[in-house]
């Protein structure tokens, strides 16, 4: 492709060439003659013909040609004239110019060519060709660029330069020297080179000649500097970098090295702003190390400022480096150093605060747990697909507990960490750590301290979990105990109901459902939902509590509560056993056998007899008596005072007439005393009656 464009370029230039070339056709001779004639006729040109009429030239050209020829002749024939740059000059004029130039130059030493041209109204080329080219042959003058110099002038200035160089005692810019000597750059360097070659320059040039920062350093200067350095050191036993810089020395180390002998130089230590003898450095180092060993930290800046030497901030890092090179365990917080021992002390000092903080974290977590308590139970249901309850066994107990524990673990995990400001505050109040190091130490120990708190919290949680697991276990056992007790009683009374006549059986059954069965249902609900005082809840609250339970438990509890309203206890029994099943509440429930029931009835009878004797309230004592009489007969009855009348009437067939009469009369008195609460006599009679009844029953 590029060859195509090259070809195009070539063709384009060919086109230009062709276009610019002259046309092929020229005018014929006749035409030319005719044209010239016409021009002459119109007096547009003025030409001179030769005699034979064949050639002609313009007048101007004629003059010029003639003049040129004439001039050539003149020069050839007469030495007095010469031609230069198309102009004719008389030699006298040239000589005069030369004389003038000589005089000028001998007076002034230097003259610019431009000024000569201006003064003599000559062009530069003319001046050059007439004078300058001839001038240099004499050997007195030099033309350099735009100026003409006499050699004397240059020589004189060279001597001035030499004098200046000898007189200088400190490093000086070449440009300043050049200004002083008043020479243009190339002449200046020419003179300098001259002097250098003849060995007359008592110093050296540093830097490139073309750069503006080239310096001349006299030899003397070096010697003076060395003497000054040695004097400084002898007086003070140290050398400050700043003093050396004032002397114009940029490379401090090199300057000091040249001032001292090799062995002496080896005994010096270079710091950030000062040079000190090695012993001084070592002394200072041991002082710092002692301080560090004593207090577990050292403030290098403060220590150095106590010294008699003028140490600066730049010197501190040298000491710090030297100390830390010897001991890698040191921690640096410039300009301070401290040991890991100090860190350990700091952490120890915070022990109490850490315990406190751990306790606070635990409280926070407990509050959080309470707020989210119902959820873990549901989550558990979903997570395990409702199957896993069996897996938990007796130890895990309530479903809620296991998950809550998991939540606690999350809380004490990687999420928790301390704020640096908090740790700094603790350190400040503990006053075991110097104020300047508090920030650095806080940053160093924060991870350790956060982890320590996490560990403490984990320990607390573990302790809590153990105790809660223990309490879980306890409550499960308690519930089972309570359940079996209540259920035993219910079964007892249920059996007793069978021997009760129809007319009061249903009422007693309903009473049983309303009391013991309901109590049992509430206890189970409380256990299942881990709430207390279910019996005191309002209906709505209870329903909400039931609603929050996992579905399997909920259904069983709903069935249980529904059975309380039914006409027999069969569904209650079924619902109860469903609820206590291993897949639901995992409570062991036993249906007491016949023998157990008999035993329990006897126990019940004994308890009732004891109550009869102990109860002060006559109505209560009457009820207990009635129930005792039934129990004695193997019929456990659960009833309240309002059933007394009906129960007594049924007793007629079961007991002695005497006792029966006692009961009847007591009953009447009780009823009467309810109606006439203020009647003291009635009350006395009642008491007597009850006492008589007691006696009779006790007798057997």
């Amino acid at each position, binding site marked *: *492709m590029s060859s*195509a464009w090259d070809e*195009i370029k070539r063709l384009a230039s*060919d*086109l230009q060439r062709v*276009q610019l070339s002259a*046309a092929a056709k020229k005018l014929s001779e006749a035409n030319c003659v005719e044209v010239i004639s016409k021009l002459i006729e119109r007096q547009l040109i003025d030409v001179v013909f030769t005699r034979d009429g064949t050639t002609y030239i313009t007048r101007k050209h004629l003059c010029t040609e003639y003049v040129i020829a004439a001039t050539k002749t003149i020069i050839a024939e007469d030495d007095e004239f010469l031609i230069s740059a198309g102009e004719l000059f008389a030699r006298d004029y040239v000589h005069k110019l030369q004389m003038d130039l000589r005089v000028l130059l001998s007076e002034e030493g230097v003259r610019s060519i431009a000024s000569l041209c201006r003064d003599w109204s000559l062009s530069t080329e003319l001046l050059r060709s007439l004078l300058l080219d001839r001038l240099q042959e004499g050997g007195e003058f030099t033309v350099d660029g735009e100026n003409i110099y006499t050699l004397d002038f240059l020589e004189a200035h060279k001597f001035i330069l030499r004098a200046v160089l000898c007189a200088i005692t400190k490093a000086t810019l070449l440009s300043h020297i050049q200004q002083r000597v008043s020479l243009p750059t190339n002449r200046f360097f020419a003179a300098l080179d001259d002097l250098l070659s003849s060995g007359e320059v008592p110093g050296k040039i540093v830097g490139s000649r073309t750069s503006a920062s080239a310096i001349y350093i006299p030899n003397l200067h070096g010697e003076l500097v060395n003497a000054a350095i040695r004097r400084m050191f002898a007086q003070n036993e140290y050398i400050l970098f700043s003093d050396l810089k004032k002397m114009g020395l940029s490379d401090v180390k090199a300057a000091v090295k040249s001032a001292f002998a090799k062995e002496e130089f080896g005994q010096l230590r270079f710091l950030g702003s000062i040079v000190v003898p090695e012993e001084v450095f070592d002394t200072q180092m041991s002082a710092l190390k002692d301080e560090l060993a004593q207090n577990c930290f050292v403030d290098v800046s403060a220590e150095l400022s106590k010294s008699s030497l003028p140490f600066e901030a730049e010197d501190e890092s040298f000491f710090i480096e030297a100390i830390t090179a010897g001991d890698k365990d040191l921690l640096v917080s410039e300009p301070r150093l401290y040991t890991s021992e100090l860190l350990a002390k700091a952490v120890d000092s915070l022990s109490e605060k850490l315990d406190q903080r751990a306790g606070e974290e635990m409280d926070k977590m407990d509050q959080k747990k309470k707020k989210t308590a119902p959820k873990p139970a549901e989550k558990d249901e979903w997570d395990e697909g409702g199957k896993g309850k069996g897996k938990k066994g007796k130890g895990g107990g309530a479903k809620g507990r296991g998950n809550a524990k998991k939540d606690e673990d999350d809380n004490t995990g990687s999420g928790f960490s301390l704020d640096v400001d908090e740790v700094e505050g603790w350190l400040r109040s503990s006053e075991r750590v110097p104020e300047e190091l508090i920030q650095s130490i806080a940053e160093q120990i924060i991870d350790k301290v956060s982890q320590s708190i996490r560990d403490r919290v984990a320990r607390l949680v573990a302790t809590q979990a153990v105790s809660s697991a223990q309490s879980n276990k306890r409550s499960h056992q308690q519930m089972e105990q309570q359940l079996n007790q209540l259920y035993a009683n219910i079964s007892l009374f249920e059996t007793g109901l069978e021997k009760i006549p129809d007319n009061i059986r249903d009422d007693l059954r309903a009473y049983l459902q309303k009391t013991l069965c309901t109590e049992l249902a509430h206890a189970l609900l409380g256990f299942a939902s881990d709430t207390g005082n279910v019996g005191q809840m309002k209906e709505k609250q209870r329903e909400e509590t039931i609603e929050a339970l996992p579905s399997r438990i909920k259904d069983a509890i709903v069935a249980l509560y529904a059975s309380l309203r039914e006409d027999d206890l069969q569904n209650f029994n079924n619902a109860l056993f469903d609820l206590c099943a291993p897949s639901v509440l995992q409570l062991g429930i036993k249906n007491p056998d016949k023998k157990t029931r008999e035993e329990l009835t006897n126990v019940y009878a004994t308890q009732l007899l004891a109550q009869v004797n102990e109860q002060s309230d006559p109505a209560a004592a009457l009820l207990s008596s009635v129930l005792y009489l039934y129990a004695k007969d193997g019929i456990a009855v659960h009833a309240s005072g309002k059933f007394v009348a009906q129960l007594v009437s049924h007793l007629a067939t079961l007991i002695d007439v005497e006792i029966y009469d006692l009961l009847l009369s007591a009953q009447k008195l009780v009823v009467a005393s309810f109606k006439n609460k203020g009647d003291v006599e009635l009350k006395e009679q009642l008491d007597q009656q009850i006492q008589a009844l007691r006696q009779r029953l006790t007798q057997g």
Partner: protein
Amino acid sequence: MDDSAKSQLKSIPLLKTKAGPRDEALWPKRLQEELEALIAFVTMNKENDKDWFHIECSDRGDRWYGKCWTFYNNVKYEFAVEFDIPITYPTTAPEISLPELDGKTAKMYRGGKICLSEHFKPLWARNVPKFGIAQAFALGLGPWLSVEIPDLVEKGLITPA
């Protein structure tokens, strides 16, 4: 078409490549052919002493500019000439323009583009891609100058160079 135009046309070599300035592959070849045709055309003009234009192009060959002139009553009238190669070239003929004459004649579109005869466009269309810049000048600009310039001179609308 008059005889002179015809004879001019005969001497200009015809072009072969059909490519516009946006055709990266073939445009260089077309440009070469254009330049060769122009060289032949100018050479012939010089030989016949009828050299009447001088043009050059940009590096890519898509912009052309230069000068053209004509004589009327032995007086030379010279004008700047310029044109761009249209994207659809050579199907579309280039629009040659003489900016200095803008607004002076009815035979000109706005911007100085010359208005060519009714014969030109069909002739061009029939001969795509054989006609190029040289032919456009020979058949378009040349005749236009020879007709229009005398008219403008007579009306006093232009003066000699």
